[in-house]
């Protein structure tokens, strides 16, 4: 293959890839709907230490204030990993997490004793 053909071929494929990405990213879903301003999301945990409605998903940007509540039917420790914040909750009680989003990544909160994940927390740059 001569260099001209190569460059032409590369250019065609680059255009194709860019188009592909632009087209495919248009339909991506945004799951940051749970962080509406003014409303503090509350994760309700049942007697089996499960989050009602499945594992909750919260998305923030770095520098935001992470703010959510956990209302638990059982006594346990709610542990937000990565940020490493444990909070004891009584049976029927509610605990509040309110902290700045300083670390980027995907993190789990779990009912520590029951080893049950209740939240997937995403902090984007």
């Amino acid at each position, binding site marked *: *293959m*001569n*260099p001209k*053909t*190569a*460059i032409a*071929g*590369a250019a065609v*494929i*680059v255009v194709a*890839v*860019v188009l592909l*990405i632009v087209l*495919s*990213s248009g339909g*991506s879903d945004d799951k940051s709907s749970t962080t509406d301003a003014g409303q503090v999301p509350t994760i309700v945990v049942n007697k089996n230490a*499960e989050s009602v409605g*499945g*594992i909750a998903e919260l998305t923030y940007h770095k520098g935001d204030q992470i703010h959510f509540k956990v209302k638990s039917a059982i006594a346990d420790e709610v*542990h937000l*990993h*990565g940020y*490493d914040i444990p909070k004891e909750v009584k049976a029927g009680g509610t605990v509040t997490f309110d902290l700045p989003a*300083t*670390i*980027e*990544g*995907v*993190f*789990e909160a*779990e009912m520590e004793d029951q*080893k*049950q*994940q209740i939240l997937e927390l*995403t902090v*984007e*740059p």
Partner: protein
Amino acid sequence: VSLLDSLPFAHALVARQDLPIPAWLFAWGASIVLIVSFFALSAAWRKPRFESEHWRPGGAGVSRVLLAIPMQVLCGLVGVFLLGVAIYAGLRGTEAPDRNFALTFLYVTCWLGFPLFSALLGNVFRPLNPWRAVGRAAGAGFRAIAGQRSAHLDYPEWLGRWPAAIGLLAVVWLEVVYGGSGGVAVGLSPEPVAVAALLYSAYTLAMMALFGVEEWCERGEIFSVYFGMFSQLGSFGVKDGRIGRRRPLSAATRWATIPGSAAVVIASIATTSFDGGQDGAFKGAIESVMGWVEDLGPSALDAARITDTIFMLGCFAGVAIVYLLGVRGMRTVKGAPSFDKLRTGFAHTLIPIALAYLIAHYFSLFVFQEQAQFTYLLSDPLGNGTTDLFGTASAGIDFTVVSSNAIWYVQVGALVVGHVLGLTLAHDRALAYWPDYRDASRSQYWMLAVMVAFTCFGLYLLSAGNG
């Protein structure tokens, strides 16, 4: 509530997971890969450059010190001691995977650290290999008592590196299937890992007694073969009792001549792909299959493990098929050697891809867990608060040391560099196999397709994240 949610859950080893790479970076990565590939085809060299090593021995003094018998004994003792600590911690320490020395040491520090440092510094595992050290000591003891060398069975040539390839699958299976099935970390507890390490030690020493220490390390011992494979990429090596330097990548050209070598490198790419995809790209498919498996009767946990095993083996088959299709394609080019010769002859071109996959998938895990390794896991190896050997038992991991942007650039950079090195090795080998350089270039359309497939698949796995 899906099946996954009903499985018992224990948090995984690391508390911060990577964000998926953004679409724009995916596009850049893929574009760079394609541009580089086209230039590689058009502007490439016409004579093989890596088939001979260009060996340059280093200073005799350095070799004398580093390769001296007391130094070998010392390194062996360090290896045996650390394996002992890991097994003891696994058996007697806390069940919490992130607080026990055993898991981080074996699966992060060693399993991920040795490939990287082997590629940079040469075969650093060889002197530290605890089983080799024990085997050699036993051999020396036998010679001293019996007055002759111990006799060994002939190692079957056809078996080659297959025991290592299967063992590699088993090591990763223990970590990510037995310990982390179904996209939810069931939590590999330290105890089964310690038990596995004990069983593996017994098996390895038995095989060394049967076939000889060096023979088994070259072909059957999982960790020697696997880490040794990556050491072929780098510049440093030992030859005739001297440490020296060779042309980078050149040692790799001879690595795959032993049967089963291709299976080792394919197993590496496949297991990393599976681990990268099980929470992301393959998650939906895994959930569907898990539903069908559970309908057949096994418990949710067993169904998850069976399904993950199927997917891991599926990854192995998939990677093997892509590679073999490339080989099959090269066969169609005028003047091609036999299928078997091509299959063996191009296997080493996948080693840089395997290393790139490891770096792309585990870079952040390594950075985070090594902080634990050298602080609280070192001071309190059992993880139950009984010791504070270096005063660092209460330290934590600083998850802010690398930003998501930095992780993304490392991931994409590793894949692109791995791709270029793989292409380089493949082009060079083609020049050695085809007398006419134009036929050699033509044969490389096929390997190019293979490399582009692996690199873009790697990018796709990273972009699909753990959603």
